[in-house]
Structure formats: C-alpha cells, structure tokens
C-alpha cells in the first residue's frame, strides 16, 4: 500500500500506526519536515522495518530543506518518481 501523507503531527502518526510490511510512505507538502533529523527523537527517527519512506524533493526544495539535514533512511523522488510509486503500489491512501 502507498500512503501519501501531506501533514506531519497526528496525520503522520495515524498513518504510522497502521503501516505494515511492504508499505511505502511518501511525504509531501508540509509532511517533508518530518524527515528532518531533529535534536529530540521523532516519529521517523528510526527506520520502520519493511516500510520505505520517501520525501518529495520539490517540496523539500521549496522549503529549503537540505537532504543532509534529514534522516539517512529517507529516500527521495521527484514528481516522475511520485508517478512511479503510484504505478508500483496499490491501493493508494491519501492522508491529509
């Protein structure tokens, strides 16, 4: 299953509560801030076994977030990659 998450906080937490092995999460819009490695532990500090987390690069760039500031396990896609994720995964759940 592909989760498209556009908000951090409760929306992202609720998504993380229900993910299972082979699921994919794509962080878009404001949710990309959850990928930033912050001083305190956060919901994405640790890689979730069996789950791949992507962040949408144009949203990172729009917000001036450098990949170097983010958790190592995060992967990145552009819009073409976003389309590929949709093609490769079903169903697709938008969390907003």
């Amino acid at each position, binding site marked *: 299953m592909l989760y498209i998450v*556009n908000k951090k906080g409760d929306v992202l937490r609720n998504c993380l509560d229900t993910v299972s092995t082979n699921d994919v999460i794509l962080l878009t819009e404001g949710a990309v801030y959850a990928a930033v490695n912050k001083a305190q532990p956060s919901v994405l500090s640790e890689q979730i076994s069996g789950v791949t987390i992507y962040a949408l690069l144009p949203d990172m760039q729009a917000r001036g977030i450098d990949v170097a500031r983010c958790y190592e396990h995060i992967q990145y896609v552009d819009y073409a990659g976003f389309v590929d994720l949709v093609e490769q995964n079903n169903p*697709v759940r938008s969390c907003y």
Partner: protein
Amino acid sequence: MKISIQINASPYQYQAADTAWHFIQAAIAKGHEVYRVFFYHDGVYNAHRDSRPPGDERDIVKRWSSLQLEHDVGLVVCVSSAQRRGLLEQSVALKVGGYEQALANGFRIAGLGLLMEAVIESDRHITFGA
C-alpha cells in the same frame, strides 16, 4: 496506467491543487492517461471563473482550463458541493443570479456518478486534500 484524480481542497489556501497539477503533468509526460479530475468539497473553488490572482502569481484556475484544452483531461465539478458553495451552473445562475455561470472554461458540473464512473474506469484514483 489510467488515473483519476480527486481534489478536495480550495486553491491557494492549501497546496493540494498544486501538488495534483504537478503530479498530473508528470503522469502525462510519462505516457499515462489522466482520465478525469473531480473537484469535491471546497475543491470546487478551483473552477471559480472570477478568480483573479496577482499578475506575478500562478493562475490555478486558468491552469486547469489549459490542462483540459491541451490534453483533453475531463474536469468535473460536483454539483451538490458547488451549489452549496455558490458556484452555480449556467441554467441555475441565470435563474437565480442573473449571470451567465460561475465556472471557468473547460469545467463541467455533474453529480457523484461521474466520480464513481471515473473510479471504476481507472487503475488508480488519487485524492489530494487539505
């Protein structure tokens, strides 16, 4: 891949319409078919004919109209969502408002049946919300 899109959020206040538009551009560039874009809830404001953003900003409503013109992507506004929010189709607008219609070029107004038809026809249905 045949894709249908649902937009639930108003333009400018939320990024949903932008994310959806860029996704659609990328999907078309990759050779996929975008079967229909259905505007629901406050998403109907993406069809507001009288939207006038400042000249140096992207014109989201016009962008949708161009998408329909250039790529023949169907743009459907939900009639019940639209009426509730004061976007009236031509016959109703003339009757109650005395004006032509509130929808921008390229959009048509219809019921949830067209959403369901798109969902049934498509390999993927992606929602962009607030």
